[in-house]
Each structure stands twice: as structure tokens, then as C-alpha cells.
């Protein structure tokens, strides 16, 4: 017993010695790798999809080359990114697909996060079939006819139902409820990550096989695998309020930027620039395609875009 207590006391007191004894501010901790050269630093959060990478790559390139900042990036899913933003671990989230709960908590109640304006890109989630399939069966693009074709979409994973492929667990989805409430003869199969979903879609497309998938625009993959959206019952404000009873399409969401409120106030040129950053779906896709399909590094892709779109980004700096 005695030995154990001594060890415990020793451990605690050494911890106290190491840290000093005052209060520690948990909101003021940057990455230990940041700022190694002693420059002004901005930390951006990157989400797992390529569009988000494209935003960050271009913002990073301009911050570094035009404004003289050092930029750190942290890869993190949207919901944890909100949390990180409120704590000041990251300074900005450039592409948010709508998280009312988080908005209420951090923007309205705690005021630790400030809206950073629109990204300029409108996001839309939906169900898609490859265009080669839509050409074969033009009526497949309406949900009412999906049951007629469910046999086309069978896979070992979905058994005797059709497979509706969903993606990463970090995405907003009502698909399970939709399948149930629209009485569709389909089984939702979760690919588990966007990488897995894209890989599978490309394999299907290579063989011109039919598939039905949850997918979203803007997305670079449309350039490689042309897809057509399946019409779902139209979206009306509030029709997705009860997650169990959803029976309508997904909305069109103007994507938003958010900044840590301290950074928004005191972030100087970097914050001003990030607030003005606004581009189009085409711009984003151009960069995304370079990263994801041509396998350029995000930095090379950003450089190429920046070099050829001077007039667009000059406005962000004024």
C-alpha cells in the first residue's frame, strides 16, 4: 500500500511541478507543429471530401503566397470541426452543409463561432443513377418506378432487394427513413467512407453496371461518371423535420463558411480574406478534379487555378 501511495503522490506532484499551478486556458492551444518558423499562422479545417480540400487548397495558397501567412490544416469531420472551431483549435470551416443544432449551440448561445458568409457553392444531396442506365430506362429517374427496376440493383450485400448505396457516416442522410416511408423494395448499404463509395462507383461504371447511390453535388466524380438524379417527392420547408417520417427530397443548401469568433474579430487580413472568399461550383470542381482525378497535390492544383483566375481572387483581397 505504501509504495503505491508514494508513487501516486510522486506522479501528481511532478505533474503539478511541470505545469505550474495556475489555471490553464483550454481554449488557447495550437498544434505543437504549427508556427515552427515563427510566422503568422492560420489553421484551417479540411473535411474528408475533395470539394472541401479544394476550398482549403486555394485559400491556403493565397494566404501563403499573397498575404504571407503560414497555414496549417487539420483533417476533421464536420461535427467535430464545429467543436474545434468553438475552442479555437481551428480558425475556419470553409464548407458547412447545414448543422442547425450546432449553429444554435455555438453561434446563437455561446457566440464562440461567427458566420463567415456564403461559400458561393450550392450543395444538393440526392439519389443518382449512372446516365448510361437512365438512357436505357428513361422512367427510372422517378422514384415511383424504382420498385419496377429493383432487380437491376441487386448485389450480394442487399440480397433479394435492390441496393441503395450510402456513403460516409459523417454525411447527412434520411435514406433509411425514405426507403421505408416511400415503401421501396430497397436495402440501404452503407459504404462506410467516401473513398469506398467512389471506388465502388467507378468499378460499377467501368463495367456499365446499374447502380443507385446517395450522392451530392458539387462533386468532381460527375465528370468521370456522368450521373442523373432520381426525382423524389419534392422538398418543402420542414418536410424533413421529423427524421422518422421524412418522405421528401433533400433541400438545396447554399454552403456556409464559419469562423472562430475571436479570429473573426482579430484575425486581420486573413479573417477579412476568408470572409470574402466566394467562388462558383465550376471553380470548385475544376480544382477538385485536378486533385482527385489527375492526382495533383492540392498545392499544385491550387497554384494552377490561382494562376488562371486572377480576376476572381483579386476581389477577395481588396
Amino acid at each position: 500500500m505504501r509504495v503505491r501511495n508514494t508513487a501516486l503522490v510522486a506522479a501528481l506532484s511532478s505533474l503539478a511541478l511541470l505545469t505550474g499551478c495556475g489555471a490553464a486556458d483550454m481554449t488557447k492551444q495550437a498544434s505543437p507543429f504549427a508556427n515552427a518558423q515563427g510566422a503568422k499562422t492560420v489553421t484551417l479545417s479540411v473535411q474528408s471530401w475533395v470539394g472541401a480540400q479544394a476550398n482549403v487548397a486555394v485559400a491556403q495558397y493565397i494566404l501563403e503566397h499573397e498575404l504571407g501567412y503560414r497555414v496549417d490544416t487539420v483533417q476533421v469531420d464536420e461535427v467535430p470541426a464545429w467543436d474545434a472551431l468553438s475552442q479555437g483549435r481551428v480558425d475556419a470551416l470553409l464548407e458547412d452543409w447545414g448543422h442547425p443544432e450546432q449553429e444554435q449551440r455555438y453561434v446563437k448561445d455561446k457566440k464562440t463561432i461567427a458566420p463567415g458568409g456564403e461559400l458561393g457553392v450550392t450543395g444538393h444531396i440526392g439519389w443518382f443513377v449512372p446516365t448510361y442506365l437512365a438512357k436505357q430506362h428513361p422512367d427510372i429517374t422517378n422514384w415511383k418506378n424504382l420498385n419496377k427496376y429493383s432487380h437491376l440493383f441487386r448485389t450480394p450485400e442487399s440480397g433479394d432487394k435492390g441496393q441503395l448505396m450510402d456513403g460516409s457516416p459523417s454525411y447527412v442522410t434520411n435514406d433509411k427513413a425514405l426507403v421505408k416511408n416511400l415503401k421501396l423494395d430497397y436495402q440501404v448499404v452503407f459504404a462506410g467512407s467516401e473513398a469506398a463509395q467512389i471506388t465502388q462507383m467507378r468499378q460499377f461504371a467501368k463495367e456499365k453496371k446499374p447502380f443507385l447511390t446517395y450522392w451530392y453535388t458539387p462533386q468532381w466524380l460527375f465528370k468521370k461518371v456522368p450521373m442523373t438524379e432520381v426525382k423524389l417527392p419534392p422538398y418543402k420547408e420542414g418536410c424533413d423535420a421529423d427524421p422518422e417520417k421524412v418522405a421528401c427530397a433533400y433541400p438545396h443548401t447554399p454552403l456556409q463558411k464559419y469562423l472562430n469568433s475571436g479570429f473573426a474579430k482579430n484575425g486581420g487580413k486573413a479573417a477579412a480574406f476568408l470572409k470574402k472568399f466566394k467562388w462558383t461550383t465550376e471553380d470548385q470542381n475544376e480544382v477538385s478534379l485536378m486533385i482527385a482525378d489527375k492526382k495533383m497535390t492540392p498545392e499544385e492544383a491550387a497554384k494552377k487555378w490561382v494562376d488562371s483566375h486572377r480576376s476572381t481572387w483579386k476581389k477577395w483581397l481588396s
Partner: protein
Amino acid sequence: MATITASPPRIGLPGLLRHPAVRKLLLLALAAAILVPLADARWASGAWPSALTVDFSEPLAKASDWIIDNRDSHPLFLYFFGHVSNVVVIAVRAVYLTLLAIGWAGVTALGALVAWRVAGVRLALGTAVAFLACGLLGMWVPTMQTLALMVVAVVASVVVGMLLGLAAGLSDRMDRVLRPVLDTMQVLPAFAYLLPVVLVFGIGVPAAVLATVIYAAPPMARLTSLGLRGADKEVLEAVESLGSTARQRLLTARLPLARKELLLGVNQTIMMALSMAVIAAVIGAGGLGDRVYQALASVDVGAALAAGIPIVLLAVVLDRVTGAAGEKLGAEPEPRSGLGWLLALVGVVAVAVAGRFAGRLDWPEAWIVGIAEPVNRAVDWMTAHLYSGVPVIGGTADWAGHFTTWVLDPVRGGLQWLPWWSVLLIVAALAWVIGTWRTALTAVLAMAAIGVLGVWQPSLDTLSQVLAAVAVTLVVGFATGIAAARSDRLERLLRPVLDVFQTMPQFVYLIPVVALFGVGRAPAVAAAIVYALPAVVRITTQGLRQVDPAALEASGSLGATSWQQLKQVQLPLARPALLLAVNQGLVLVLAVVVIGGLVGGGALGYDVVFGLAQGDLATGLVAGAAIVCLGLMLDRVTQPTERRAKKGA
């Protein structure tokens, strides 16, 4: 004290009944005959009755809200977690800046010279080559970030592990209390506790280090305790007779006697910590793991591999060097070893200073070799040609499809069709026949806990995948292991392959696995097999090789063919090793269930990832707890009576 296990009472019974397994089963049947109708009448059969579940989502959601609301003001955070977090950041930063200041040449020289002093010339060369390869792949800075993080995490794990191990080694009560805690720390998938850690520390390095410590400290604790308990009784008595106090005995006799175990503990801790490098990147740890994870987002296997290789190299080098240090411990110290260390130190300083003056601290851009493109081309070729339409044997997609419909579906269907009480009965029977009534009780309680948590169906889904994966792993693993045990050349050839399989971050082969097998449970099983196979092969080979050569010779002189020798001598004698292989196979397969969730495995793995991605503490933690229970159950069911002293090793 804790090693005493109750044995069933020995009552003289006639004939068949004298066999203990039969007696146990009879007893169980009797109990079932009374209990099952009762349970059936009360809660009906089929899946786990909802009356017996407890919903944890409300309290967990409240806990998560409380943390978010009090993080910036509550003393617990201001005066404890805040400091822990600061210390970690400062320490990692200090190591990182030091590594950068020494420069790539200095770091390489330092690594090589330490390896030379500790493990000899060959490993020194290997270490230097490994570091240079990290640079050549264009991963120098991320490698240094990972290294800095690892240094701090390993030191913290070793300290925490030793403290826990001391407690467990010196007190039987603490040992009993700590054992399930350590089990949980290791089996709970890291993804499940990433979220609570992130809630407290926020994303970034402190959370990553803490998550790593949770995972990497248990082997250190286990081996420390084992070392203390294993100390030679006679030496201890001799020391005691000299009138020393308890503390003196600990410091002068028990700890030094346990140094082999301690060093093995450090070795294991390093390996476990490195295997967390990528998972820690999910919460913003940066470094190599982050590169792997980011490469996933753009479906770029080549880039992921370029970042994965340095992790493998670091792991192999550190494993070999600490392993060699352990082997040298018992030997006499070399004469003039002080001089050697001095020489080494001077060498490092010279190289570092030279690098500094040459202005070559950063790895030169021109020396970077891009491997991403050729790798991607190779993967594309592979998937294009193997996925489907291969003559005669069919493509990998067809195999995956058949595996899903012929193996996975029936097993899952069968398990989910079984009434809940019969699952408990089967678990009890298996565990009791192989182990004791205690292990049986633990196994049944673990299985029941899954029901209570309300995840009965997904857990059985996961269980079916685990069983299928383990079956394949064992067939392939035993065959390979037997072959390797019979041919030295094959074993030498296999070793690097197994190293790579074991240390390559699973995220790297996620995409190839999907590209070959499609989305679903089949790729999840494939990923698990890749991960669990090396351990099974190694244990089998080692077990077979350790069979007493005298027994082999004897059978050989009796004219047994080599096949007969294998079947009648080697395999029976290696039975304990083979059982251990089964056990490890199960544990390791279970460890990648979460990775399976990322490629369409669904069930518990998906829930855990979902919990983290959506900040949903309840879903993630409950699924994680269910995985722990499954692990506990499977471990007990496959673990013969003697307690596993070496688990964790």
C-alpha cells in the same frame, strides 16, 4: 492468489459421466431445462427482449453536453485537463523542434549510431536506410511530426504502464481490479473513445497522445506486473534477510530482476503506439497518419502508401532495435562500451553541425522520389483485370459475392435466428467445456451485456463476420505456418512480408480492398484477414519449431514419414501454441471491425465510426462497449483453463 481457479468437485461417477466435459454439459442442460421455459414464458424467444435493455443515450448525451458547457470554466478542466494538455503540447513541440534543429542528416546519424551501440552494425545500417527512405518518399517533415508525437506518447505510456504494473505486481487486490480495466483499454476500439477524449481535450495533439496512451499502456502494465511477480523467490529472500525495507527490495532486487519483461513492455508499447498513428490522425494529430488519411479522401492509394511506408519502416526499426537491446540485457557488458557511446555522440554532433553549416536542415526537394503514380497505375491494373471476368476462377468480385451469399449470409442468418437464450447457452457450454465455471460465467455475462445495451442484432452481425474471418485466417495461417516451420528459407522470405502486413496502417489498403471485393461485408472480412494473418502464422511456426527435437528424432527413427511426424507428433505437441493462435486471431480480427465499418461492413464497426463523425457519444460508446463484450466473450470461449500470463505480450 488470483491464479487459483476453482475446479469442479470430483465425485465418483460411472463410465461416460466421469468425463468432466460431459458432466459440465449435463449440469448446464439441467439448468437450461429449468430456466429456459421461465425465460421463454416471461420474455418470449427470438431476438433479445426489449424489456431487458437499458437505453444509455439520454445520460450519455447529457454527459457530452455537460462537458461542452463546462469545458472553459470548471476547475476540473482549468486545473487538471488543461495542464495535462499543456504539458503534452510543450513536450511534443520540444521534441519536434529538436528533431528539426538536428536536421535530416543529424537525425539519421543519431538513429544509426544508437542502433549501432544497442544492436550492432547491421541494424545501424538498416536504421539509416529507413530514415533516408522516409526522406526519399518526401515524408521527412511528417515523419518527424509522428516521431515527436510517438516519443512523448511512448514515454507517457511507459510511465503510466509502469505505475499501473507496480500496483498490480505488488498487490493482489489491485491486480484483480486492474485486469478487466486493462482488457477493456485494449479491446475497446480506439474510435469509440476518440470522441470522449476529443470532447475533453478538443481535437489535436493532446487528445491524440491521450488516446495513444490508453491503447499502448496496458502491455507495459501487464509485463511490469508479470516481471515483478516472476522474480526469483530465493533472491528475494536473500535480500530480505539482509534487513532491507520494502522499497529497497523493490528498487534493488525486484525491478532489476524484471528488466527483461520491462524492456519487452517498452517494445510492445512502441509497436502499439505506432499502430495508433493513423487513427490519431482522425482527430487531428497530424504527421504521417494525417497524410494517409488525407490521401483516402482523394482515393489515392499511391499517396497513402508513400505515407504508410515510413510508418512500417519506423515500426520495424524500433522493433528490431529494442528487441536486440532486450537480448543483450542478460549478456556481459562489452569492455569500453562507454567509449563507444562517446564516439557515437561525437559522430552525431559532427554530422548535425555539418548539416547546419551546409544549410541542409530540410530534406532537399530534388531528392524526392514520387511513388504515388506507378503505385496507382499498378492498383488500377490489378482491379481492372482481377475484379471480374477472369477465366475459370472468376474475378475477385465474384468470390466476394459468393463468400457473402454462401458463408456470411447463412452464418448471420443462423445467429440472428437463434433465440436469445440459446445463444447464451451455447456460449456457456463452449466456455465451460474449454475453461472453468468462472470463464463461462464471464462469457455469458458479456454476451448478456450486449443484449442489455440494446445492440443484440448488429452484434450478431459483427460476430458472424468475425467468425468467418477467423475461419479463413486460421486455415490460411495454419497452412502457411506449417510450411514455414518446415522450411527455413520460406520463413526468412515470409518475415518481411509479415512485418509489412502487421504494421501497414489499415487505411492504406482500404481502397484496394474495396476495388477488389466491392463494398460490403466481404472487403471488411478481407481487411481483417490481412491484419490477423501474420500473428497466426508466426505463432504457429514458432509453436511447431519449439516441439522437442528428441520427440521428432524418435518418431523419425521409427520410420515415420514427414507427414506422419507432422500429424502425430508436431501438431499435438504444439497444441497450446495453436490454441493461442486461435485466440490471437479472434482478438486481432475484432480489432479491425471498425475498419470494416469503413468499407461497408456495417453493424458495430459502422456505429462506432458514425458516433465519432456525428459527435454522437451514445451510438459510438455503446457500439464500442458491445465490441469489448464480444471480445471478452470470444477470449473466454477460446481460452483454456490456465490463465494467460503472456496476453498483452
